[in-house]
Structure formats: structure tokens, C-alpha cells
């Protein structure tokens, strides 16, 4: 069993174990802070991983992504403010439960559901990824280029409110990534004679600008408009209602399993993330329920469904990354950078070239789930109260400074700090005008690989661009992209007031 090798590899590395434990705690705390996503936390902590071995670095960031998704439910349940977009559906039943004195029960339900969903997703990743990789290893540059195009089109069209602006976000990200020396000819591209731009823009300051500096700008405006997230707990604590009973747990089992399946399926699709999964699962379970009228008033199933689904996304969202080298989510895109920093090429061959590392990462994921489950089950109310006592108007200035030193420390470059600041403004404008920051970042990470596959394909081809429609797998991926945009367009055109 490969996963047992993974556990052996993980347990032979005490630093990695320490960082998995740290990640479980950091993820929960950061996830519980409204506005600050797991991706933002990962961006700020990315420079720390430069000092670590590959397993510790990857496990640290991967587990923060998992526990961050769960942490979002704490703020959703206790403060009626989702810590992350993935927890927005948890508020619908979680907060009414907290208001009626069942905060402990809601948090324990969220923990059990998150752990169930995450383990299901992780198992699908462990067994599915190897199977898919054994097939995709035979793909050549034309197939890869079609996969990249499919990913651009699907992510651009489904990730944001508007199809056009989503695709434009991917185009912006792709263009920005091409700045620097051409990897094949060594020619300078769009550098405007700046020496710093010759090596291209680095991922870390870009991430920090787009996710962290932008969030500080948004929060300071919210503070001025007095809509700042008031993090006072609405929970009236009732010790008798703090338990998740066995009868309630049994009632939640089918809900959690079905929602985990929904989340896992959505997780495999590039661009569709936890925020989509939680609402789809909540809606589906409510549709199936006999007690529809009780949904939204504070029932455990209403917490279990979105929490299972949003955490089930985590594992399967790594499948496109590990089998094709194409990240399907922002966190996966950041992990690509970490793999490359440590000299590991992501793609189907990774299961043979870095076998121990990959299965060690899977083992770290499973261990991280158990750890955040234990912390969440016994400590979530305490973490919630702790966060409720710290004012966001103190937290955000510190986040601003952390962002700057994180941007600087990656290459000891003040130019990178300037890049983070500039992309903070870009990210703010993107958010204000409904462009998609995740689509921008994913395209930034993917574009260089796409360009390489494109040029290699054209060099291989005797018929120019026709090479992309001469191979069945390549055509299939292109058709999937067209179909997804088509379905989304039909949905939008049917609703007259919806943005295209």
C-alpha cells in the first residue's frame, strides 16, 4: 500500500509532523477571521517554507488549506460572518443554532461533517489520482495545450459572476506571466528595459498583493462605512446543548456522505471551488428533505451538508494538479510554485519521480484532518471566543505589515514589495469591477506551461494549428471547454438581468 509508505515517510520526518500540527492550528485561526482566506494565509506564510524540506513545506501549506476551510465555519456559526466564502452556506442554519444556545452542537456538527467530507475527498485523491495519472502520462504537447485551454476557458467562465470578465481575468493573468525572458529564445518580453522584470514577476508578491493588500483596502473602507465585521458572539452558551447526540449523528450520516460526493465531484472540476460546493450540497439536501420548512431555522443537517461538501473539495481539487500539472484552485496554484521551488516537476510522472513525497503529502493530509478535527471538536468554542475578543481594527494593520515582510523576504527585494503594493491596487479594482482574482492567479501560474505546449505542438505539426483537432484526446478536452461555456451562456441568457 503506497499510502503506508507515505505514512512511514511522514513519520520519519519530525519537522514535517511539527508543521502539520502548526498548520492545523494556524488554518483554523486564520479561517475563522472574516475576510482572510486560507489562500491569503498561505501567501503570507509561503516564504517560511523556503527554509523547509519539500515534504514539510508542502504538508504545511496543504493542511492550512484544509483546516482553513473548516475554520471558516467557526465565524459563520458564532458571528454570522463567514470566515471564508466556503462557509457562507453554513451560516444559514449554524447561526440560528448558536442564537438558540446550541453553538457547541453546531460547532461539533461542523467538525464531524468537515472531517467526514475531507476524508472522503482525500481517499478519492489517493486512489483516483494514481489511476488517472497512469493514463495521462501518455499525453503529448497538443493534448496538454488543449487541457490548458480547457482549464482557462472553464475557470474563466465559471469562477466569477460574469463570463466575459472571468475570461478577461485569465487573459490578464496569462499576459502578466509572460513578462520576462522568453524561456526558449532568451529574448526580453514586455520588460520595458527594467532589469528587475527580466526574470519575470514572482508569484509570492503577486499573491500577497491580490489577496492580502486588497483585503486590507476593502476592510479599511468597511471600517469607515461602519460595516466592519463585528465579531461579537451571538451565542448564548447552554452546556446542555453542546453535545452532538448519537441520534443526530446517525441522521447526519447519509447527508454527510451525499454532500461529500457532491463536494468531491465539484472539487475535480477546475475553477469550481468550495463556495460552489457548499451551496449545491445545501440546496440538494434541502430539496431531498422531508422537513424542508425546518431548514434555515437551525438544524444539524443544515450545518452538516455544506461543511461536508466544502471540505470534500480539498483532496479532489489536487487531482488535476497531480495528474495533469494543471491547478484547479488557488491553493493548488500556490502549491505548484512550492513544487517548482524545490525542483519538482508537477504532472503525471510525479507518482514515479517523487513517489515518497506525494504519498507523504497524502498522509500529511489525513493526519492534518484528524488534528484539526480534534482541535475543532474540543477547542472551536474557545478559538471563537478568542477571536471575538481581538478587534479587527488591530488585526488588519498587523496583516498589512506581515504581507510586506512576506513579499520582501522571498527574494530580499524591495521591488517585490512594490509589486505586492501595485497588485494590491489591481486586486482592489478587480474586486470592485467583478473580475476574478482566482482566475487571474491560476492563469498566471498556467500560462508559461501553456505557451510551451503551444509552441512545441506547432513545431511538431505539419499542418499548423490543425494538430489540435487531429488528436482525439485533444479534441475531447477542447469540446469540454466549449460545452462548459455553452451551458453557462445558456443559463445566463435565460435570466435577462444576469451579467454575461
Amino acid at each position: 500500500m503506497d499510502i503506508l509508505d507515505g505514512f512511514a515517510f511522514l513519520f520519519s520526518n519530525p519537522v514535517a509532523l511539527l508543521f502539520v500540527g502548526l498548520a492545523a492550528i494556524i488554518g483554523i485561526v486564520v479561517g475563522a477571521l472574516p475576510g482572510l482566506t486560507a489562500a491569503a494565509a498561505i501567501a503570507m506564510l509561503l516564504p517560511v517554507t523556503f527554509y523547509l524540506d519539500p515534504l514539510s513545506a508542502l504538508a504545511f501549506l496543504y493542511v492550512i488549506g484544509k483546516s482553513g476551510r473548516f475554520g471558516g465555519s467557526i465565524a459563520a456559526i458564532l458571528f454570522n460572518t463567514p470566515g471564508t466564502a466556503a462557509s457562507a452556506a453554513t451560516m444559514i442554519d449554524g447561526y440560528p443554532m448558536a442564537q438558540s444556545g446550541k453553538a457547541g452542537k453546531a460547532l461539533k456538527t461542523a467538525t464531524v461533517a468537515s472531517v467526514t467530507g475531507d476524508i472522503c475527498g482525500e481517499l478519492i485523491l489517493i486512489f483516483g489520482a494514481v489511476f488517472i495519472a497512469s493514463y495521462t502520462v501518455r499525453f503529448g504537447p497538443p493534448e496538454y495545450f488543449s487541457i490548458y485551454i480547457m482549464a482557462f476557458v472553464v475557470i474563466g467562465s465559471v469562477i466569477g459572476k460574469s463570463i466575459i470578465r472571468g475570461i478577461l481575468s485569465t487573459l490578464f493573468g496569462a499576459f502578466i506571466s509572460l513578462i520576462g525572458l522568453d524561456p526558449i529564445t532568451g529574448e526580453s518580453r514586455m520588460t520595458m528595459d527594467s532589469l528587475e522584470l527580466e526574470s519575470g514577476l514572482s508569484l509570492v508578491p503577486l499573491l500577497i498583493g491580490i489577496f492580502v493588500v486588497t483585503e486590507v483596502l476593502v476592510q479599511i473602507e468597511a471600517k469607515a462605512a461602519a460595516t466592519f465585521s463585528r465579531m461579537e458572539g451571538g451565542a448564548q452558551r447552554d452546556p446542555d446543548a453542546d453535545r452532538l447526540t448519537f441520534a443526530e449523528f446517525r441522521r447526519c450520516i447519509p447527508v454527510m456522505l451525499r454532500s461529500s460526493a457532491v463536494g468531491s465531484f465539484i472539487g475535480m472540476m477546475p475553477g469550481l471551488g468550495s463556495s460552489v460546493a457548499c451551496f449545491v450540497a445545501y440546496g440538494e439536501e434541502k430539496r431531498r428533505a422531508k422537513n424542508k420548512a425546518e431548514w434555515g431555522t437551525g438544524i444539524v443537517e443544515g450545518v452538516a451538508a455544506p461543511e461536508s461538501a466544502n471540505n470534500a473539495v480539498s483532496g479532489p481539487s489536487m487531482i488535476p494538479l497531480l495528474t495533469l500539472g494543471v491547478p484547479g484552485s488557488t491553493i493548488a496554484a500556490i502549491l505548484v510554485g512550492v513544487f517548482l521551488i524545490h525542483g519538482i516537476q508537477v504532472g503525471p510522472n510525479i507518482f514515479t519521480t517523487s513517489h515518497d513525497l506525494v504519498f507523504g503529502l497524502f498522509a500529511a493530509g489525513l493526519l492534518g484532518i484528524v488534528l484539526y478535527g480534534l482541535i475543532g471538536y474540543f477547542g472551536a468554542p474557545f478559538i471563537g471566543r478568542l477571536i471575538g475578543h481581538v478587534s479587527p481594527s488591530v488585526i488588519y494593520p498587523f496583516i498589512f505589515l506581515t504581507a510586506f515582510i512576506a513579499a520582501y523576504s522571498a527574494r530580499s527585494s524591495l521591488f517585490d514589495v512594490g509589486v505586492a503594493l501595485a497588485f494590491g491596487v489591481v486586486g482592489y479594482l478587480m474586486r470592485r469591477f467583478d473580475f476574478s482574482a482566482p482566475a487571474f492567479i491560476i492563469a498566471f501560474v498556467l500560462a508559461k506551461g501553456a505557451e510551451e505546449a503551444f509552441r512545441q505542438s506547432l513545431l511538431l505539426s505539419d499542418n499548423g494549428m490543425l494538430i489540435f483537432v487531429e488528436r482525439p484526446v485533444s479534441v475531447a478536452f477542447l469540446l469540454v471547454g466549449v460545452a462548459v461555456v455553452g451551458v453557462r451562456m445558456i443559463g445566463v441568457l435565460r435570466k435577462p438581468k444576469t451579467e454575461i
Partner: protein
Amino acid sequence: MTQTLRDAAVGGFVMACGALFLFQARMIDTDPDDPFGPKLAPTIIAGLTIGFGLLQVLVAMLRPGTADDAATQPFRPLLFCSVIGAGVAYIFLFQFVGYLISTLVVLTGMLLLFRNRFSGRLMVTAVLGALVYHVVFIELMNVHDPASLLSFRNILNWVG
């Protein structure tokens, strides 16, 4: 500003960006015998950006929305510029007075921008915060401190 006008303006801005991208792409030196050279991908992306910008303008005209943007958070230029100004000031201060002092100054400024009342407590928070950041990043993680005038390490060495 109505949503239609706003969307059309966004489309126009995107087209201008696309034109700038195209100009930059055309400036790339390339071998005339290599049709798939470094210019190809940026040119295609620039062309697509202009095309989608135009599509955005057309959609805004042909399919106008009804809502205006009054529901969104109002833009506060003074606050926005203050945060960006704090960032720019940080970059310059960092080079001239080093990490510790620049962090203290910018942290105090940011705490005030976030409407914390100026008090002894705020100053203690800023001083302790700056010290913790300095110890963690500069002393423990060995991040390069470019300070030339007021290096904390130099002062410590001098005291030592």
C-alpha cells in the same frame, strides 16, 4: 454612474489595456524566419483582450442592467490613497532607517488609519508589535535588513 455606463467604461479600459499589451508584444525582437517565436503568444493574448473588451462594451450597450452601483461600498479615495501611501512610505523608510523603525512608524500609522484612538495603549501595541516582527523576521529568520543609518543590529552591537 449607471451599471450600463460603468460596464461600457470597463470594456473601454480593457480595450486600452489590450492595445498597450499589443504595443508591448509588437516591440519584442524576433527572428523573422520563426513564425512561432516569443511574440506569438503575447500577440494572441493582446488580440483576445481587445476582442473581449469590445464584447464587454457591446454587451453593456445591448443588454443594459437596471441596478446602479449605489448598493456597493462607496469608494473612499482618501483612505485608499492613505493605505497605498503607507505602503510607499514603508518601502522608502525601509531603505533609509531599517526594518524596526519603519515597521514602528507604519504600524502606528496603520493603527490610526483603522480608527484606533491615539493612546498609550496604541503606542505600546505598536512598539511591541514592531519588536516582535523584528525579532521573528530579522533576527530569527535572517531576512536581510537593508538599514544603513539606524540598523538595530548595529545599535545592539554597539551597546554590546
